[in-house]
């Protein structure tokens, strides 16, 4: 009887100890195997491929399984991804929205499902849905670009502008930053402005039309580097590379090379790897219990010209 009682007590104590131990070790490894979703507006643009891959890489380094979703610049496709993510038990979303307003409902759905969202590069028009939004300071970057534009054109001439996607706040931050400088100079005249949708091929078509209507322009300002390369193709085909200066924005590999070769004047170097890394790290900290993140975190943009291009590589600094 005594032995039986002793045995029961010992076994209970042993099991209790085992239980405590397994709780402790499961807490240490509780984040391993958790999934983080990386939702990117489009993987058709190398810049966004870098953003997505960098976010995934950092999430994996932090111990998570990470999956990239391509929204193909389509808000409906993005909604399908969010429905899938919410149903599949992902712990956080690193998100590059397709549309500042159109993406609100998706972020709201994730928030209601208890999944934190961290926006990268593009913002949504709300400051109480995403946990944090890590964004390029496009406006200030284009102020720098605008000042260089004025300097290169010596304050006079005619130019055209290729805008990005009209539903993306980045389009307007860049355009407004640029115009906040350039519009002060009455001898600098914009003769046409049209959306190239941030797409190289579309930009080439638009530029070809603009050159038909305005063959004597001195420059073109493009809201991203993919459009700058498309514009360059059109200008090259028209035989006007000596006449027309081209300005882009992003810091893409082909434009950095083109600046070095004197084909493109300047670009605004964004840092997608910094944004992606920060978003992944914030998600990790959030999952581990931290709160109180800043809602909007702008990341500075550098001006890259032929004078300083050797300090830069694609999407970042040389050292």
């Amino acid at each position: 009887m005594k032995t039986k009682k002793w045995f029961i007590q010992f076994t209970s104590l042993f099991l209790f100890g085992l239980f405590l131990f397994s709780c402790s070790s499961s807490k240490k490894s509780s984040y391993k195997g958790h999934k983080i979703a990386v939702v990117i507006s489009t993987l058709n643009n190398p810049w966004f491929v870098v953003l997505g891959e960098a976010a995934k890489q950092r999430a994996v380094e932090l111990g998570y399984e990470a999956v990239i979703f391509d929204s193909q610049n389509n808000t409906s496709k993005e909604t399908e991804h969010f429905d899938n993510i919410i149903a599949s038990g992902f712990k956080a979303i690193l998100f590059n929205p397709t549309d500042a307003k159109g993406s609100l409902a998706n972020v709201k759905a994730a928030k209601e499902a208890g999944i934190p969202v961290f926006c990268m590069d593009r913002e949504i028009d709300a400051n109480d849905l995403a946990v944090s939004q890590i964004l390029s300071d496009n406006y200030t970057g284009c102020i720098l670009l605008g000042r260089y534009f004025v300097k290169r054109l010596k304050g006079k001439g005619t130019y055209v502008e290729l805008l990005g996607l009209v539903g993306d706040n980045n389009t307007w931050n860049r355009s407004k930053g640029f115009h906040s400088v350039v519009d002060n100079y009455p001898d600098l005249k914009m003769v046409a402005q049209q959306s190239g949708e941030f797409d190289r091929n579309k930009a080439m078509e638009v530029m070809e039309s603009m050159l038909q209507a305005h063959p004597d322009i001195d420059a073109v300002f493009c809201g991203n580097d993919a459009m700058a390369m498309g514009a360059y193709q059109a200008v090259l085909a028209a035989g006007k590379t000596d006449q027309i200066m081209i300005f882009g924005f992003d810091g893409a590999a082909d434009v950095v090379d083109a600046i070095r070769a004197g084909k493109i004047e300047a670009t605004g170097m964004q840092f997608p790897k910094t944004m992606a890394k920060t978003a992944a790290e914030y998600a990790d900290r959030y999952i581990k219990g931290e709160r109180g993140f800043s809602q909007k975190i702008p990341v500075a943009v550098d001006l890259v010209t032929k004078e300083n291009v050797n300090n830069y590589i694609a999407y970042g600094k040389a050292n």
Partner: protein
Amino acid sequence: MNKFIKISLISLIAIVALYSSVYFEKLNIRKERVSIRDFNPRDKAEYFWDNGLEPILQSAIDLKLFDSQLVNNPESLINRYGKAIGITSTYSFLVKSTAHQVSPNAEEIPVKIQNSHSEYSLQIKYIFGNAARDATGYFHIDDFENTMDFNAISTELNRLIVEKEIVKLDSIPIGETITFIGALEINSEIIPDKITIIPLKLEAVR
């Protein structure tokens, strides 16, 4: 039982009537709608200019001190007086000094400091950028629904600088001493040779 059925029916009718007569909207959605409709950067900037700017200007540091610290102790200068937003190496400061009026058609007025390390000028034409907004530290990016609204504040402040301060230069004779408080930005990774100051307050010394 009849009494029970009566009370239940009356209650049901009352609930249906009440539900149909009220409109429920989540607070965050309402705030979103209202803020989009009501945001006016001009009003916000003017309110700040009239009510919030003057006390903030009192914290401006002397340009001589700024210049000396920039070379001798930049980290301390930045930590104590610099303001930055987000992930950046650009910091903005409020500074004060004096200058002498030049031609009214000039783009800038040189600001001379004895033994200065950098060359300073007061920008009096083509006012743009975020120095005025960021150096005051009054506007916080998280208070704005999107960055376009936040940047619109810069545009309006720059307009007010031209309309309220730079216009004073029209009546100040060439050579007259001007005291000013202004905003400047520097990149902490490169000490610039030339630094431009955006005026926030200008006064002739008579």
